[in-house]
């Protein structure tokens, strides 16, 4: 199988605390990989390493065969690694539409243009609007991002990520705080991307039903280390996973 | 040897003086994150009021008390009228406190007249004595002592109470602190008043040191207090102390050994610290990833 991203002995320590510990994983191209693990297991940190928000203390990262360990987050985005953030991370005082439009603009590589009015690029705005419709946020297009309700911000976050049209999508708890009613719609979006089969998605989630529904494979992190990597059903059966992560909930929690 | 000793002692004294001027700002700017450009006005008022009361009473320590009271009262007024509406907004803080600074400086002339005023230490602190070849100025020892007292007192209060924590928490998330049952408004007011009182005290102690005070001392030394706080690291009282001493010593030595650079020493020192250790020498803040 072809792998889009590989890590080799990847580690990072904060002070004395090793948050990601000698992680060597391969993520298959155009598949759907989920990452689970207890709180503080290092999932977000792992994403931060992949996307370049953090530099590893040790180890290497290969993207499409190229060593990207030393590349900045900007460069990685341009190479096709896009991510959403667990803690909502948007441009607070800009409108929802402008938030997404900026992402579209970046994707269209219009970066240092200072002669023309930005409205000249009308298609950026149209594209941004389309994305907002996709995540059910079109009615809020003119609201200032900081005024959104929590769940609405999560949706905005997803729209911004989609706008980048990256080959690799790193989704960090995209539906946390999203209402029951709207989760299916977002799932639909993710599924559509998955079904097209030309992108790789890595998802961090604590909602097991979602993981089971979407994943081709599941990685379990535990204390910064890879505990298991397997198909979803196998993972559910794994005793350690059950006791350390799922607790007694796993069978009831399928509503 | 004598020379080194003398330069060091005087550098320390000047440093302590700077610390006294900046200590209040460590609370107000370092801890409460208020860009208070009227800070200098507070120490000008402390200086004039203290000198006036010292003159009336003939007692230096009554003068100190007078300065402190002036600082507390002005601090309360400043916080209530000027700062309260602009917490958390640096831009507005700059504008409103600069406006208030003009008012404070000009009011000073209305109240105390536009002339500069002489200020002498009380007799028992006046003059100097010599050990070997070294002349030691009494008032400087007094300044060093006052600096140590203020430092010890303030750090004791900050260590032993939750006030420091609460203020820092309040700056980060005021609503949450209130939701935890804390009257953050009152605490901000109190801390601001104490910071202002420290500024006023610093101003008063400055007066006999330089021998003269004038309405614009606030303008002249205000920025300086900011420099000390930034070099020391935001919110760190011991940082401010160290930074102030460092600046004082650097000035003393540069003025002796490299006089041509003395004019630029403050700025050079600050530039160097910011370039190589931007969070300041002893920062307690800025650990957050934001």
């Amino acid at each position: 199988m072809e792998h889009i991203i590989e890590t080799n002995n990847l580690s990072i320590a904060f002070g004395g605390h090793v948050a990601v510990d000698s992680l060597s994983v391969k993520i298959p191209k155009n598949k759907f990989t989920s990452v689970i693990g207890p709180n503080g297991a290092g999932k977000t940190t792992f994403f931060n390493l992949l996307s370049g928000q953090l530099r590893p203390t040790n180890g290497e990262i290969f993207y499409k065969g190229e060593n990207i360990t030393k590349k900045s987050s900007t460069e990685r985005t341009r190479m096709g690694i896009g991510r959403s953030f667990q803690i909502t991370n948007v441009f607070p005082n800009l409108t929802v539409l402008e938030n997404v439009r900026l992402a579209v603009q970046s994707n269209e590589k219009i970066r240092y243009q200072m002669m023309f009015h930005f409205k000249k690029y009308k298609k950026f705005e149209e594209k941004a609007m389309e994305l907002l419709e996709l995540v059910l946020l079109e009615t809020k297009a003119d609201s200032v991002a900081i005024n959104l309700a929590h769940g609405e911000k999560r949706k905005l976050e997803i729209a911004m990520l989609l706008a980048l049209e990256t080959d690799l999508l790193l989704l960090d708890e995209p539906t946390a705080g999203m209402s029951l009613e709207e989760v299916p719609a977002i799932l639909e979006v993710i599924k559509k991307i998955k079904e097209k089969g030309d992108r790789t998605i890595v998802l961090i989630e604590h909602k097991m039903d979602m993981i089971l529904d979407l994943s081709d494979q599941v990685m379990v992190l535990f204390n910064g280390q890879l505990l298991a990597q397997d198909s979803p059903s196998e993972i559910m059966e794994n005793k350690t996973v059950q006791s350390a992560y799922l607790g007694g909930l796993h069978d009831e929690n399928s509503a | 040897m004598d020379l080194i000793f003398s330069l060091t002692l005087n550098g320390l004294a000047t440093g302590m003086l700077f610390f006294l001027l900046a200590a209040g700002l460590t609370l107000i700017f370092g801890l409460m994150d208020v860009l208070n450009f009227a800070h200098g006005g507070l120490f000008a008022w402390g200086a004039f009021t203290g000198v006036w009361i010292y003159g009336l009473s003939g007692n230096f320590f009554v003068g100190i008390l007078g300065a402190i009271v002036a600082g507390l009262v002005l601090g309360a007024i400043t916080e209530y009228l000027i700062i309260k509406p602009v917490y958390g907004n640096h831009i507005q803080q700059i504008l409103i406190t600069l406006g208030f600074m003009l008012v404070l400086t000009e009011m000073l002339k209305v109240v105390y007249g536009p002339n500069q005023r002489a200020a002498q230490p009380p007799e028992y602190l006046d003059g100097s004595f010599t050990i070997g070849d070294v002349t030691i100025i009494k008032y400087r020892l007094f300044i060093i002592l006052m600096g140590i007292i203020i430092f010890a007192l303030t750090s004791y209060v900050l260590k032993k109470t939750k006030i420091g924590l609460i203020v820092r928490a309040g700056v980060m998330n005021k609503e949450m602190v209130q939701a935890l049952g804390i009257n953050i408004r009152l605490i901000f007011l109190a801390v601001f008043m104490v910071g202002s009182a420290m500024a006023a005290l610093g101003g008063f102690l400055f007066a006999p040191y330089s021998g003269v005070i004038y309405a614009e001392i606030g303008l002249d030394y205000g920025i300086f207090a900011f420099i000390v706080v930034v070099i020391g690291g935001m919110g760190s009282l011991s940082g401010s102390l160290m930074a102030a001493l460092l600046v004082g010593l650097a000035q003393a030595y540069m003025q002796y050994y490299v006089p041509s650079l003395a004019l630029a020493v403050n700025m050079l020192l600050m530039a160097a610290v910011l370039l190589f250790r931007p969070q300041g020498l002893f920062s307690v803040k800025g650990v957050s990833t934001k």
Partner: protein
Amino acid sequence: AACNSEDTSGGDNGNDQEQGSDSEQGDDGSEGSDDSASKEPIKIGVLASLSGALEVYGKQTQQGFDLGIEYATDGTMEVAGRPIEIIYEDTETTPQVARQKALKLLEEDKVDFLVGSSSSGDTLAVVDLAQEYEKIMIVEPAVADSITGENFNEYIFRTARNSSQDAVAGAAAIADEGVKIATLAPDSAFGRDGISAFKEAAEGLGAEIVLEEYPPADATDFTANIQKIIQAEPDYLFVVWAGANTPWNQIADMDLQGKGIKISTGAPDIAALSTMQPLVGMEGFTVYYHDLPDNEVNDWLVQKMEEKHGTVPDLFTPGGMSAAISIVEALKQSEGDATGSKLIDIMEGMSFETPKGTMTFRPEDHQALQSLYSITLEEKEGFDYPVPVLNRVLSPEETAPPIRN
């Protein structure tokens, strides 16, 4: 709006920014005012720091100028039949504002004379306007040599003494064959110029400069410099200092006098004198102290100041007065003709009586040569500041500075 004077409410403490020609000022001048009203007034624009750090100086000039006009016109406030109108403008000690105000005076008020200002920067920013508009400008009390030096133009006359005169006076007060002198001055153009002029004069008198110290202009601690001075073992320490961060306390604390080093400097205005308590016994010079000159004009000034403002004239009051007197004097000679070019001829070499005795505009650079005073600071009963006591009057010729334009 500023050019038409409101009636100046009588007995206030001189806070009026402008005191027009309103006759209530001089009660003995009531005749003549009728026919003078028909004549075109002479307008004088005075630039001074009336707010901000130098306002004390500005106000001294202002008071002195008002009195000077009153004195020179015998209270009629008119010369050669023309009433005099004075317009004060506040430069706020900012060159940009000074220039703007000067333009206002020249363009809007169409003044015939400019006077000012309290800082050299403000003055330098406007001197070329005097030339451009061909109006006489009396420089008072700005001291920078360059005003009558490299930046001189023929419309500029200065009643104030310049830095070099100070320096020469300072030298005359202490320098002598074989005397060793150390200097202390701020590290600025003002300080360095002052010392270099002093050095020239002192060395001319046979003294030796053993050390020059230039601490930063905003220094708070002078001990490092004083250390060096002590080590150099001079007979005198000559200090040029302006600005409020004075070194006096520290000089006293380091007990220079006890170590046999005498201090010398120019005595400042009274408020600043009070900060020189530690320097009692010092020998130096001064531009003016009210009981030093012995002449009628000064007597009048002292008396009038007491009547009007309840104080004695201070350092720059006589300067303001001298500027006013010089203008009136020149106008008398021109019979009320305020044309710049005409006045230049009259004023070059013109002598006039001032509170500081006779002053003369030197033809070459229009700098007024004037008396300065060698003094000793002494403690005196009833004064809360050390009082300058006259050693001797330094004659105008003695303190004449080099011509540098």
